[in-house]
């Protein structure tokens, strides 16, 4: 394709956008809203995933020992744990240490423990750290088989709940996104239909003088792509701005929440949104061209 022809296509597409001002505006707005919501869901899902992974990587296994083990027996369990593949750190927490920690955590409500009297129901335990998160489960299961071990627990439930939440958000988001993408597709295809209709005479003449189908299609395709890209650009700008503010707020008040830093995270999402917008625009055009322009 010659550069001059490309110039002609772009000029024609821009001219159409201007001529259908109101419809163009409606298309861009719909795409912008749809993609903004898509962007928000992406941000949410990825952040939840990130949080779950962060928690998972910090996981340590608590190994509770049976009551009544001798010091030698307990030391033996400790040695066996240390020898397990992947184990990097083993700390012994005695019944007394555990109670001390528990009291600290209760703070002013320590009086609740008075009911126990002198009894300490907490078991002796080991805190075990492993090198890789995917080893947590196997190591925990292996330790449970050891003589003298009552139980081995890690933050499995919390993590699993977080992943379940991510999955739910993902499914819910997908439904909304599909619905909104269809709406955007519909409105872009309508805008292009109006353009095709307004220019049917021109299209007819182009066909009579021997323009190829693609020569006729290109300006309309470009128009759709520009609508999609324009909408995506608005969504990207808004998302970038709001995520910046969100990050700032979270760092100030909820610093422990492991949010993904703004860059390059938002840049990557922006690329996804811009490509999606442009593709939606091109698809919308194609639908109209196939239905309303017999070329």
């Amino acid at each position, binding site marked *: *394709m*010659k550069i*001059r*022809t490309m110039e*002609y296509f772009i000029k024609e597409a821009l001219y159409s956008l201007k001529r259908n001002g109101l419809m163009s505006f409606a298309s861009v707005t719909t795409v912008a809203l749809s993609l903004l919501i898509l962007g928000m869901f992406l941000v949410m899902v990825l952040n939840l995933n990130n949080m779950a992974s962060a928690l998972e990587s910090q996981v340590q296994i608590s190994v509770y020992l049976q009551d009544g083990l001798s010091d030698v027996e307990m030391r033996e369990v400790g040695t066996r744990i240390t020898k397990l593949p992947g184990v990097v750190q083993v700390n012994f927490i005695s019944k007394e240490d555990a109670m001390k920690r528990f009291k600290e955590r209760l703070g002013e409500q320590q009086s609740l423990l008075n009911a126990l009297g002198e009894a300490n129901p907490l078991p002796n335990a080991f805190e075990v750290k492993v090198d890789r998160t995917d080893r947590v489960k196997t190591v925990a299961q292996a330790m449970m088989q050891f003589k003298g071990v009552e139980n081995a627990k890690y933050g499995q439930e919390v993590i699993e709940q977080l992943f379940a939440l991510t999955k739910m958000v993902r499914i819910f988001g997908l439904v909304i996104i599909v619905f909104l993408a269809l709406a955007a597709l519909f409105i872009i295809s309508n805008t292009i239909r109006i353009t095709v209709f307004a220019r049917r*005479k*021109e299209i*007819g*003449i*182009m*066909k*009579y*003088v*021997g*323009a*190829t*189908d693609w*020569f006729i299609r290109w300006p309309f395709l470009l128009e759709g792509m520009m609508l999609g890209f324009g909408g995506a650009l608005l969504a990207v700008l808004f998302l970038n701005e709001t995520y910046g503010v969100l990050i700032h707020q979270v760092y100030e008040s909820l610093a422990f929440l492991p949010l993904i830093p703004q860059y390059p995270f938002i840049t990557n999402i922006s690329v996804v949104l811009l490509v999606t917008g442009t593709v939606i625009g091109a698809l919308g055009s194609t639908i109209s061209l196939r239905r309303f322009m017999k070329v």
Partner: protein
Amino acid sequence: MIHLDGVSKIYDNGCVALSDITVDIPKGDFVFVVGPSGAGKSTFIKLIFREELPTKGKLIVNGRNVGELDPSEVPYLRRNLGIVFQDYRLLPNKTVYENVAFAMQVIESSRREIQKRVSHVLDLVGLRHKGKNFPNELSGGEQQRIAIARAIVNNPVVVIADEPTGNLDPETSWDIMRIFEHINKDGTTIVMATHDKTVVDAMKKRVIAIEKSRIARDQVRGVYGYED
């Protein structure tokens, strides 16, 4: 140049527009296609530039078998044809110059080529000075001359005209016919469907008369032969 061999056209609603037409139009011919309204003249014209497809028979235009032409090849057939309509079909938002240049633009001619050819054909139809005007600023005759300029700008081997003088007064019609004659003298084949008795009778060109979807007459130096 144009060869029809037993060509029939039956529309989807069962209407028979053309029936078993066999005719040969050699290069450089000037042919009037005449006949009563609804006889099949327009269908005859439309078949040539493949606006319609023949239902039966073989139709060759400029060496291409139109009936078997792949849709993607149709533009290339039409690049060798110039088409002129009764209602001019100019683009109102483009100037005279742009309307003519448009035909070259869509086949991706170079800017220099476009400038040279458009000026030449506007000279030929005597409207170079109106290049910057818009179609609605021109008379009917002038608009038709622009349409002719657009039809011939790509050097077609055949110019097809469907009632080109249908909307024009007799004097203007003669201006138009003189242009067609000039184009024909340069070797371009002209096929023109018309109702203009005066023109047909005076020009003494080949006349193909279509009646009730069949060829009723094919005369070398024919006359119109109808009272309308």
